[in-house]
């Protein structure tokens, strides 16, 4: 009961976030975090309710799968959005000192100098 309420409230927060946030990237971040936690709580409540081995195995499989794939999907869609040139929010602080090139097929990571 408690877990189910927590999960439903988290999904409501996610929906409000996706409706009210000013920018695509903030929308994406609040969506993924709240939705994974909300669905995880609801499925955990389901495992506690049935208290069966088969059901809890399925529940853990779903939660594991969701927790693995949801950040990957969010990363892919945000990378696509960044490449296709969707502008940031006007108050977003961009750190100019960090050089990260995103969007090319050949991504070069700068090699760190080895300390002797």
């Amino acid at each position, binding site marked *: 009961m408690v877990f189910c309420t927590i999960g*439903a409230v988290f*999904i409501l927060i996610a929906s409000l976030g*996706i409706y009210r946030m000013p920018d*695509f990237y903030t929308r994406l971040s609040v969506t993924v975090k709240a939705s994974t936690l909300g669905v995880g709580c609801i499925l955990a409540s389901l495992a506690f309710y049935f208290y069966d081995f088969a059901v809890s195995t399925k529940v853990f499989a779903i939660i594991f*799968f969701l927790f693995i*794939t949801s950040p990957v999907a969010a990363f*892919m*869609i945000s990378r696509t959005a960044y490449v296709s040139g969707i502008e940031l929010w006007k108050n977003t602080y961009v750190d100019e000192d960090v050089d990260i090139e995103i969007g090319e097929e050949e991504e070069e990571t700068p090699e760190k100098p080895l300390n002797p």
Partner: protein
Amino acid sequence: MSLQQYLMYIVMPILCLSLVIILLRYLKGPKVVDRAVALDLIITSGVGIIGVFCILYNNASFLDVAMILALIAFLSTIAFSYYLDNGDNNKTNKNE
């Protein structure tokens, strides 16, 4: 108030309200990626609604549907991002 009544009258309306709000964002979304993310969130909260239905009707076999739905959400988001990415690359190549 039993658990079934609590789920039926409090938790399910919250989930349905959140679905309606996400649908508003889906209809409103200024860019395609907004719609893709809203669709992903709709499917993810559909998984949650299926979980609540399992408790309501005391039937655990709906969980298979939830598992397949989570798989489809991930695959659709990945496919959408690939599609948008390749479309933009083709467009820039043509412009060049």
